């Protein structure tokens, strides 16, 4: 009789609390980045000579910086820029890299060979080093952060998707589609892509953390977002000079960055788990 008993549905929040925490953090971060004006009490770039380097208080939750700017408001407004970097620096390589991997894996041949060789060589180098080298050539600025990360980031996706395409290429349903006389374009987009894209998307969820941290690192080094624009790495860099007597300028932006990073990592881990169980 037990055989027919319906397996009790366990709600997802009970089995995967970490995943839910990740979703809550990411959604909150996105909301903050869309509506900073409703949360931040002050203008993030407004200078106030009467409140310079004030410690955290009821008036200024996170204190003020050397220009008397409210650190809380700056940190809140910065969420918009950092999340933007994290997301857009990931999406472009995700799309372009997946396409390249799809084409290289499906057609193979000389182009595939050369492409993979170059990717292998370049990918032995640390991400940061490659991005810095490209930033050196392009010069400073937010736009160049995007370009630098795009130029480096797509390779991981190309490799990932290519590997999956190679496995899939000999699958029966692809063979069937080919025999039916479907065009390459149709096979690639309608049959291959839906099957290989999920692992690339899962990878992208954790890649957001890497891109966000890289963008913030560049701004921290002074190569990226320029003051007075509020950006977490740039605020940290400005606060560094006052570390002896005003710890709050460096502490809070980093804390927000860390929480956002952990949120995306938890989300990525949860998605990986789903993919793994789905595959079983």
């Amino acid at each position, binding site marked *: 009789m037990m055989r027919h008993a319906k397996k009790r549905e366990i709600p997802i929040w009970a089995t995967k609390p970490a995943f839910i925490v990740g979703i809550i953090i990411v959604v909150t971060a996105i909301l903050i980045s869309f509506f900073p004006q409703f949360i931040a009490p002050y203008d993030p770039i407004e200078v106030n000579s009467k409140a310079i380097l004030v410690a955290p208080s009821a008036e200024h939750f996170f204190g003020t910086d050397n220009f008397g700017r409210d650190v809380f408001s700056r940190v809140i407004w910065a969420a918009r820029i950092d999340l933007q970097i994290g997301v857009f620096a990931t999406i472009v390589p995700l799309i372009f890299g997946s396409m390249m991997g799809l084409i290289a894996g499906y057609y193979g041949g000389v182009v595939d060979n050369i492409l993979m060789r170059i990717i292998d060589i370049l990918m032995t180098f640390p991400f940061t*080093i490659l991005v810095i080298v490209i930033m050196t050539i392009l010069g400073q600025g937010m736009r160049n952060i995007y370009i630098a990360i795009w130029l480096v980031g797509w390779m991981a996706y190309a490799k990932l998707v290519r590997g999956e395409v190679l496995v899939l290429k000999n699958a029966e349903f692809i063979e069937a589609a080919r025999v039916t006389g479907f065009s390459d374009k149709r096979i690639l987009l309608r049959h291959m892509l839906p099957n290989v894209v999920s692992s690339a998307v899962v990878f992208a969820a954790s890649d957001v*953390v890497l891109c966000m941290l890289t963008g913030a690192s560049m701004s921290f080094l002074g190569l990226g977002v320029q003051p007075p624009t509020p950006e977490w790495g740039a605020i940290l860099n400005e606060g560094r000079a006052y570390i002896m007597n005003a710890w709050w300028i460096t502490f809070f*932006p980093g804390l927000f*960055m860390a929480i956002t990073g952990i949120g995306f990592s938890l989300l990525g881990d949860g998605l990986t788990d789903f993919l793994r169980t789905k595959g079983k």
Partner: protein
Amino acid sequence: MNGLNYILKRILQIIPVVFIISILIFLMLRAIPGDPARLVLGEKATIESIDAMREKLGLNESYLVQYGKFVKGIVSLDLGTSLTYQRPVIELLRSRVKITLMLTLISTFFSLLISFPLGYYAGKYKDSMFDQIIKSGALAAVSMPSFWIGLLLMILFGVKLRWLPVGGWGDTFIDQIRSLILPGLTMSLLTSALLIRNIRNSVVDISNMDYVDFARSKGISERAVKNRHILRNALISTVTLLLMRMAYMLGGSVIIETVFSLPGIGKLMVDSIFGRDYAVVQALVMLFAMIILLINLLTDIIYSFLDPRVKF
């Protein structure tokens, strides 16, 4: 094939890679908008000195000849003169590389010290409270900006407790080690997190293997099982991972050395980018590339010796 042949083959494989990298670096300086001679001399240079520099750098010659000279310069270690420091680049590198090397070694030491006990016990007591905490900690460590952690350590141990210097480089050996502790610790966090995951997972995997059960049932002491079977097997993948991480530490050195004002090659890189000191930037990129290739080569060779299953 024997081991020596394998090593020889790996070294031969590197040659085309070095060739491609040298071309990329050669093109790098030329990809920067503007006249390279002006880039080398700076904004205030006169037209005569730029012409003279163009001649000296051989910019009026064909790209092929220029590339030949570039390679010759690298081979004979003549890397040009630093604009900022007015010293031969090679001298500059020689004095700076030691600091980054020491930083990497200290950070490797910390990583091993942190990750082996934590990873081992997390794996041994799988799914326990301790395991959960370690897992969460490792996830947090890979998601946080290292420069923030560095600054927090600096505030705590440098500013509040005054145990260690907040940055800079010491004169005596003891001072130098003291100034490397915080940056080394900062740098080791990410590596430790990755190593802990790896050690934990291999301990879990290996503990379930039949031969470990067999060893236990033979009556071998728990300590011997741990040393001879579990740790030894966990060591192979850990050493490989650690060596690979050392290449990434070089990338991290750029940020960590800036945070702690350590005069190593990472900080030199950032300073040279801001100072538009392109001769130094070019030499550093080449140096980074060579170190990374060397580390990769070593990783492959060591791995092949550690793991007898790898066939030559």
